[in-house]
């Protein structure tokens, strides 16, 4: 991964920085320049809540090469309190006990490693509350 590509996403991946449309109130993660609903370009910064509930999930058993060491692992779509939805890994969980609606919280984790000599990539994962 080219370092600049990784670096410019750090505000989202490390600090959950989002933005909110000042006109209609919809939040965007990652932040956007144009509101998809009201087309306004007037936004204010917002930090996402770090707890939410699981909307749907799967267990990846045939992973991309940089995730082989973690396999099998759970992936879910999580609705954070406040309504923003993210896709993330669900770590430190029993893969057989995942349930739609369960409460999860965000933790800062290593996500992947770019080969033997590449950069370590960090970001958010969810764990059961």
């Amino acid at each position, binding site marked *: 991964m080219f370092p600049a590509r990784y670096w410019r*996403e750090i505000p989202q991946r490390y600090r959950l920085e989002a933005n909110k449309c000042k006109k209609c109130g919809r939040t965007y*993660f*990652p932040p956007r320049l144009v509101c998809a609903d009201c087309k306004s370009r007037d936004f204010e910064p917002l930090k996402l809540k770090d707890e939410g509930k699981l*909307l*749907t*999930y*799967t*267990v*990846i*058993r*045939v*992973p*991309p*090469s940089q*995730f082989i060491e*973690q396999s099998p*692992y759970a*992936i*879910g*779509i999580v609705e954070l309190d406040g309504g923003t*939805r*993210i*896709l*993330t*890994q669900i770590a430190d969980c029993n893969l057989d006990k995942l349930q*739609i609606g369960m409460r999860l919280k965000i933790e800062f984790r290593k*996500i*992947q490693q770019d080969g033997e000599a590449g950069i370590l*990539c960090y*970001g958010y*994962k969810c764990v059961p509350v």
Partner: protein
Amino acid sequence: MRDVAIIGVGMNKWGELWQKPLRDIFVESALLAIEDSGVDHIDSMYVGCMSSGIFVGQEHLGSLLADYLGVNPIPCTRIESACASGGAAVRMGFMDVASGMSDIVLVGGVEKMTDVSGGGATYALSTAADQEYEVYHGVTFPGLYALMARSHMHQYGTSREQLAQVAVKNHENGSKNPLAQYPQKVTVEKVMNSILIADPLRILDCSPITDGAACAILCPAEMAKKLSKKPPVKIIASGHATDTIALHSRKDFTTLNATVKAAEKAYKMANLKPEDINLAEVHDCFTIAEIIVIEDLGFVKKGEGGKATESGMTALDGKIPVNTSGGLKSKGHPVGATGVGQLIEIVHQLRGEAGQRQVKDAKIGLTQNMGGSGGSTVVHIMQAM
């Protein structure tokens, strides 16, 4: 706008074509389509291809393919819309002819997927999802469709068996298609005991990795009968729509809004309703996709796709046969070619030359070709002339 007809189609058997390069795979099917149509020249070309840059390190297909087909200097453009690239190329050709810019247009699709490892193909396909906010976290395409499957099962009670029945039906149809990559029949039990890829989806819920091409010749409908040796087929509607690239940005994971909107546009343009369609080729990249898509096309009510499949409604002898060719599941899924392959099956059916899989009295057929986790969809409706 001029009416547009399809006057020739061509494709070879799809599969793992180790001995052939991308350019020859394409040219062979283009020559078949030209021969089938009887035309002596073409005015322009549009070729759908998702990711030749990653699969074989080759971009600039417009120049390459026109060159190797021996038709330089006519205009040729590569069209990319992920797995909907083929359908999007058909739409470009349709607009070219309808607008009066060109008379005889070749539309095609090609993908050469087996020159990279399984992991390499997974990576190339994953570029159709959101790199930074989906793929970064380790999700794969089977994973994204598994998230939809879990939602659909939770919300509507769709069963694991009903997912398997999509694969059973499509392989049954594919067994009657000499061009199918995997014509083997499968049973519900075999699907449900195949290895897990992304729960609840198993390997036999997934479409394969395929090399292949497909081409068709379009012309103004008024010229079709004079130019063509075979019964022409009219394209009576073309609908195209987009949705969010990231699955998690959508309000509901059990519906594909780009498919709903593309179908709405196509039905309006053709002045038809879902119940007027005699058969359909839909984008069954995973079994759950066919269940959701037949709902979103309006063939059944939302939530009833699984039950409809179980009841035989979408079987070859059902009320609305779906994927008579075997679908992506059995016929194969060379991503850029898939949308054109769907059109070819409808043309064969409307001409009455589909052999053992012929649908009786087929007059109107629909194709639905989808990219990514549903971020792009192209719908076409065809009618026998």
